[in-house]
Structures are given as C-alpha cells and as structure tokens.
C-alpha cells in the first residue's frame, strides 16, 4: 500500500447535530481512508443520513471537527463540499427527471465556452456528451446507451449509475452514498455494488449507507455502526461476522470486537 493510505482522507471528531429537540447525532467519530469503502450501518433513525448530510454540507453540525486530508475544514454548503472533492449520492438521488443524463452529470458545473460572461456563457453540449461517454465507459456502465434521454425514463439502477458517475466525473476524492441499493433488483444491485468497488479501486474514499448486511459484507472494507446518534463499534469486514454487527446495531451488546486500529 502507498504511504498516503495511512493518513485518513476524512476524519470526524465529536460531531453533534440536533433538529430542535431531537438529538440526531451525539458526538460521532469517524475515519475514512483513500481507496477504502466504509459502510455506515444502524437502525432507522440512528443518524446515518444526518451524518452524511453534515459531511456533504447539506447542513452544518452544531459541534465537532471535520478534518479533510489532514486539515480542519468547514463544509458550509454543497458548493464548499464539491470544491473540497466530496460528492454525495443521496437516498432520494436528487437528480432532475426532466433533464437528460448528460445534463444531470454536469449540473452545476457545466462546461461552457465564450462569448458572454457569467452564467450566460454557452454550453458545450458536444464536449459534455463525449466526456459522459468516457466516464461511463471507464466505470463499465453499459446500461446507459442513450445519454440524451431524460432520466425520468431510467430504472433505479440506471439512476444510481448516473449519480455515481457524477461523482467520478467531478474528480471527487470522497463519495458518499445513502442507501444506493435500496429498492433495486438482484442484477441492478450487483451493478451498483460493482460501481462502488470500482470507485475505491480508483483510489477514492467511499462511505456507503446500507441496511442490507449481505451487501455491506460484499462491498465494504470496514463497517461503522451508529446507534441513537452515537458510535456503536467499528468492524473490519475480513475479521468479523454479520452477527457481531447485528448485535451492535440493535444494542444487544456494545461490541467493539475486531476493532479497527
């Protein structure tokens, strides 16, 4: 392994977040390295989505530190996250149904050319389409043939592929995925998990939320468990059993068995 892999890409310390009276996160710590898939698991309402949104800049934490590539950062908004190299694939996907695949991939970062300034610059549609084809080919996504179709006509897996490709396209360093395989069939789940692995193989850090432990054990290098807004153990996939993780999720035992160093 290269030396850089020892320093974490992202490190969270003592993150707290409340929605009014609801304490969604009560001091969560987390670490992700480059080239690693970290699965984030926990029961409904454990705070997984909230944590991911904090990293993604969808909202800011009340307390706690975020270190990205060793430096403390403030992720004040989605734009700030994007500038750091953090891309997010949300549970509700957040893609625009009326736009085609290319437009969705480049949304907010369109390739433009002169004349005129600011947001009145012309779109380079052909260049964007070509780049889209390249990225889809790199990720071995073969399900998206017609990139000029509105995404409203795509299947769940295809939409996930669009969202993931967006992260790669933007040269992200860290990709967050919130339940990417929920509501997918067997084949499409396969495809998406393959995509997730290929992100890590490209050297990106990946955090993936999932309720499906068999998916988690297929794709993750490490597994972090949240319970009621707190850390409830971290497991190295190769050294743990699904039962240990289930126990941590349900609070049967507060396990930190096979704890990652």
């Amino acid at each position, binding site marked *: 392994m290269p030396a850089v892999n020892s320093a974490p890409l992202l490190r969270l310390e003592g993150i707290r977040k409340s929605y009014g009276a609801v304490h969604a996160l009560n001091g969560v710590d987390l670490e992700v390295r480059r080239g690693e898939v970290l699965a984030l698991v926990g029961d409904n309402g454990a705070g997984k989505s909230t944590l991911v949104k904090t990293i*993604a800049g*969808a909202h800011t934490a009340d307390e706690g530190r975020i270190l990205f590539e060793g430096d403390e950062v403030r992720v004040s908004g*989605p*734009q700030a996250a*994007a500038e750091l190299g953090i891309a*997010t694939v*949300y549970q509700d*996907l*957040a*893609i*625009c*149904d*009326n*736009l085609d695949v290319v*437009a969705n991939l480049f*949304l*907010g*970062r*369109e390739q*433009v050319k002169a004349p*005129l300034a*600011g*947001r*009145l*610059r*012309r*779109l380079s*549609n*052909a*260049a964007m*389409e*070509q780049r889209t*084809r390249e990225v889809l080919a790199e990720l*071995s*996504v*073969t*399900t*998206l*043939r*017609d990139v000029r*179709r509105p995404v*409203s*006509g795509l299947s769940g*897996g295809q939409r996930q592929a669009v969202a993931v490709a967006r992260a790669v396209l933007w040269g992200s360093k860290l990709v967050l995925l919130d339940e990417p395989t929920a509501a997918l069939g067997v*084949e*499409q789940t*396969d*495809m998406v*998990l*393959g*995509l997730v*692995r*290929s992100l890590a193989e490209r050297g990106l850090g990946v955090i993936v939320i999932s309720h499906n432990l068999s998916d988690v054990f297929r794709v993750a290098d490490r597994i972090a468990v949240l319970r009621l807004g707190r850390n409830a153990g971290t497991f190295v996939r190769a050294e743990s059993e699904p039962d240990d993780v289930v126990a941590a999720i349900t609070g049967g035992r507060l396990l930190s068995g096979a704890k990652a160093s």
Partner: protein
Amino acid sequence: MSAVRADAPGRDGARLGLAARLGAARDADWGPVPVLIGLALIWLVFQLLNENFLTARNLSNLVLQVGVVGMLSLGVVLVLLIGEIDLSLGTLAGMCAAVVAVLLTNHGWPTWAAIAFAIAVGAAAGLLQGGISVLVGVPSFVVTLGGFLAWQGVQLTLLGNAGELRVEDEFVRGIANSYLPSWLAWLLLVVAVAGWWADVALRRRARTRLSLTTRPLSHDVAACLAPAAFGALVVAYLDGYFGVPWLLVVLIGISVALGALTTRTQLGRHLFAIGGDREAARRAGVRVDQIRVLVFALAAGLAAVAGLIAVSRQFAVSTGTGGGTLLLEAIAAAVIGGASLFGGQGRVYQALLGALVIASVENGLDLLGKPSSTKDIATGAILVAAVSIDAISRRRRAARGA
C-alpha cells in the same frame, strides 16, 4: 464486476422495423408539432367559414393582435419553467403602460427615457415580488396575487379621475403600427436564415469532431430548409399588404434571444433544473434563490414591454389596459405551447405559437361577427383540449417508461 446488458434500442433508424419506428415516433418529444397541427386546423376551419381569414390583410392584423398576449406569454413561460406562477404580469403591464403615458404625455420626457424607465419599473416590481417570495418563503401564487391587486391600484392612481391618457408619441405609436420596407424584411430574413444554417452546421461539426452520433443529414437539411421556406412565405405574403410589421420582428427577436438563453446557456440549463427538481438543483450547487428572483424580474420586464405594445395598439392607456382575461390568456398560450404548470418543461417560441392559436380564434370569430362571449367559450375549450391531449400523451409515454 458484472454489468447489465443494455436494452435500449439502437439509434440508427435504418434497421428498425415499422412497428418499432411507430413506437419510437409515439415516444418522441413532438416539440411544436401538436400546436402547429392545431393552428393549421383552426386556420382551415376559419378559412372555410370566411374566405377573408387567410388574406394578407387579415393575417397582418393577426400579427398585431397577437402582440400583447404573445409578449406576456414569453415572460409566463420563463416563470412556468422554474415551476412558479406569476399572476401579476397582466396588471403589471397595465401599470407600466400608465407609467409610460404619464411620463410622455404629462411630463414630456424623451421617448427613450420614458420607455427605459417603464421597463425598469416593471423589472423592479418583479424583483420585489420575487424577493419576497424567495426570501420570506411566501408561495409565488400569493405574492403575485397581491401584486395583481396592488399594481392595478397604482395604475388607477396614475390615470387619475379621467381614467384614460392618450399618447401622441410617434415612436410608441409606431411599435404596433409600422412596417418594414420590403428590402429590409428580405435582408433580415436572409441574415436570420444564414445564422440558423451556420448554427446547425457548427453543431453538426462539433459532434462529428468528437465522433459522437449525429442525426441523419436529411434531418439537418430539413431543419435548414423548412424555416427558410416558411420565413420566405411569410415575408412574401405580408408584403402583399403593408409589409412585415415591426412588431413581428420584435416578437421573434425577443423570443429567439430568450430561446437561446433557455436552451443554450448555463443559466437556461439551471432554469430547467430548478423546475425539474429544486432540491436536486440546490444540492448540485445551482444558485436557486438568485435565479428565481432573476426570473421574476425578467418576466416583469417583458410584461412592461407588453404594456408598451398595448399603448401602441390603443394610442392610449385606460383603466382596462392589462386587465381582464389578458394574463390568463398568456398563461393559456404558454400551456397550449407545451409548457408544464409543474415546471421544468416548455419552450419559449412555442408559447408564441400558443398565443397565435388564441389570437387566431378571437380574430376568426370576430370576422364571423360573433360576440366576445363566444370567443371566451372557444378559447377556454381549446385550452382544456390542448392540455388534455398533452396529459394523455404524457401518461401513455410514462406508462411505457419512456
């Protein structure tokens, strides 16, 4: 890793069977075709009922009639694109018309200053409404409903007791009452067509260079020839009366500019994104709030121009200018032209075609000597029919997952 096999049909039509082709045709985005067919039918019926309908003189009138609603519908389609509504644009046009009249007639301002000021007033009013809607979070329906009442109040105040103000200014009167000399009309047509051809060719070259799929050459040739032939027909026909009205040039010019803005620029892409899924756009880094406010201001500025056209048509401003069913007709025009009330769907120039549908019905029924009550019923029926056809086709498309 495993990959799911593609099931999407190939793009090359040559090898597709007839059934597949028909299916593809049904799934395709029909663009302006439905509204054009509707327009052709309406024109045919009125021509059969009254042989004067398709005369150069009447079509020239029709162009002038479509002016106010058409200009207003251009603003409406922008607002609909981002999934909002603006109910104030009609009375806002009336208020701006009153502003121009007061400045010109009572205060003797120079023409250009009065016009610029009125458009600025309109844009500022839109900025205010958009700002309140976005910053305070009041639905645009409510804010602009308030605006609808308030701007009418301002208009009445400006017009005072007389309730009417004549405008003698030659330029303002000329907007809807002057015509291009024949040579200029042909020159403009040639320039416009040349520009369009260059655009089609450049787009084709850009795709070929990056070895992307291009549509069949015959498509591009048709896309070049059809507008040229149609434009030549219009110019030649209108030349048989007074010539091409300046108003037509203004309408087409502004809709081409707005069309380019919406379909070719980053800002335009963001308008569609906001209308499609505002939250997704926001998360992607689109400056949603800023753009929403901007659109309200832009639509209001266009409404001010519509007000100017109304003044030019009537040589005066009255308490009724910009009121009545005007705004509803403009919304109907945008919707007949294919804009969706739910946002993210619509084309600028098709709104103009929708306005032409409405104006044609009114004009035709006028020719037949029908009262305005009949016109209202007919316009209402056409609106519902147009939207129903659209809804049915959309549902069938959705059912097939296309």
